[in-house]
């Protein structure tokens, strides 16, 4: 298909009808809107927050939600609303950077595997091994050996996610290379580089984007899980996982310290997943049918 696309003039730009897009796929629209709200919240956190998220005020500890503290306060008297708003930053940074880094690594390794037999057998063995380790444990092992920080958390989540991307990319490369038109292009002396940029990369893109959306969602969950366990970002950073972890002790008298960031986390992951499902239906109908 890509071979034809090069020669065809682009179709006249269709007027984008927002309403039609929403009506055809309301859940994707919902995901998009939710995600947009969260991004705005993360970017403009200092403007949106009603209080200093780091300010400790023991006098005000464990206050229920009210006009002054919209989502109440935690056991140090910190404003849960402001901390939750800042928490969106951590989740989005982790989600997006893990998705981006593991996509790039996965793409490179997947292409190498699809191209070179010898690389393939070695890399895929390693990937199988990595996939056998539950992702949170793999991340934990890395974190045990490092000083706490956002960077190491991202690295620790990237490693278990890479094999998933490698598998997807490799499968696409192998299937494209077996296509008659690509075989004939190879026989006709098309350069490797041209083959890659013309035929393989464009076809890898759709499944890669879809997969990286799911990686983004899964990374957000893993980060929150790690922070919750005390093995994530340093405890003073207001990430949703940290807020929840710190609320544990007083959960029975101050359930808002857990429920509210928990809801934000669930809604964010939901939004990313909805977007992923929509992209999948749009870009990768074969995968959509299998699910």
């Amino acid at each position: 298909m890509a071979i034809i696309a090069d020669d065809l003039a682009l179709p006249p730009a269709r007027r984008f009808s927002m309403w039609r897009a929403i009506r055809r796929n309301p859940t994707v629209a919902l995901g998009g809107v939710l995600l947009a709200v969260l991004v705005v919240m993360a970017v403009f956190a200092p403007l949106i927050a009603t209080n200093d998220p780091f300010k400790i005020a023991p006098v005000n500890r464990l206050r229920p939600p009210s006009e002054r503290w919209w989502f109440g306060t935690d056991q140090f008297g910190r404003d849960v609303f402001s901390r939750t708003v800042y928490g969106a930053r951590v989740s989005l940074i982790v989600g997006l950077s893990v998705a981006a880094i593991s996509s790039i690594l996965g793409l490179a390794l997947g292409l190498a595997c699809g191209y070179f037999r010898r690389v393939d057998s070695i890399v895929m063995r390693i990937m199988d091994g990595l996939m056998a380790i539950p992702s949170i444990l793999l991340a934990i092992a890395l974190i045990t050996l490092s000083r706490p920080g956002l960077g190491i958390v991202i690295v620790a989540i990237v490693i278990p996610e890479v094999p998933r991307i490698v598998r997807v990319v490799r499968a696409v490369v192998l299937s494209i290379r077996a296509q008659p038109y690509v075989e004939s292009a190879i026989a006709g002396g098309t350069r490797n580089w041209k083959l890659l940029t013309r035929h393989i990369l464009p076809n890898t893109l759709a499944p890669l984007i879809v997969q990286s959306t799911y990686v983004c969602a899964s990374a957000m969950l893993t980060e929150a899980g790690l922070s919750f366990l005390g093995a994530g970002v340093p405890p003073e950073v207001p990430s949703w996982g940290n807020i929840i972890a710190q609320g544990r002790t007083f959960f029975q008298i101050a359930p808002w310290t857990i429920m509210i960031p928990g809801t934000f986390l669930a809604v964010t992951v939901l939004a990313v997943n909805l977007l992923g499902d929509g992209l999948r239906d749009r870009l990768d109908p074969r995968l959509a049918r299998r699910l």
Partner: protein
Amino acid sequence: MTAYIVRRLFATLPVMAVVALFVFFLLRFAPGDPAAIIAGEDATTEAIEAVRAKLGLDRPMVEQFFVWVTQLLRGDLGVSIFSNLPVTRLISQRLEPTVALTLSTLFVAVAMAIPIGVLAAWKVRKWVDRVVMGFAVLGFAMPVFVLAYILIYFFAVQWQMLPVQGYQPIKEGLWPFVESLILPSLALGITYMALIARTTRASMLEVLSQDYIRTANSKGLATGRVLLLHALKNAAVPIITVIGIGIALLISGVVITETVFNIPGLGRLTVDAVLKRDYPVVQGLILVFAGAKVLVNLVIDISYAFLDPRIRY
């Protein structure tokens, strides 16, 4: 059949070898000085050197490797830095709660997900189906610990129907044991359930459009028999596959669930080890969990042969 199982068993060896090599090299090639990190922020040089000696990191790499491999082959996972107890003993002491939690979750999830997946496929595009699919989408987004606290809040705190947390070993009586596992299993199982239900529905839909289902209907068989025998047996392979894939989800979730519910199992051991940076214990746990996962996949592979007579060994 036996030959097939043995062959599959051997095929898992390279995977386990990669896992083992990974944990070995992770410690040796970690950025910074692992011994210093493990020893802690304010450790003295002597303390750091003591940790280094304990981990064997002061010896040549090749020697370390051979010592480590021979230990591993003997089933020796090393010694905890803190308690000085053998890692194998620490693990076996904590095994029961984790096995109980995993099995009960597996049971709850499969027992609930397959019927609702079948129901959704049977009533496709009706409201039941929409509810099930909506639940599945939510299930994928729900973090284990958030759901856990929601469940605790309502069932344990508000309505006081079930214990807030803790674990009762089976020897303390069947009901306390079961009672202590209900909420953890539900919390841990939700994503797993969503995954299985969605796969069941998709696989059933595919099967229900087949000619042999039309034949079964033309024989006037009861709906139950058509759905649960004729259709479900054909739909089983993808469902079983996803049950296997989901075990990974379950194992990751165990660590969190045991923390929320204060269950003294392997998950709790993992978290304690991480917080104390007890690398030998973490390493042993990774090997055990990865081994469990590989073993489950092996069982799944073998079960295909029983489900589909067309599969040959």
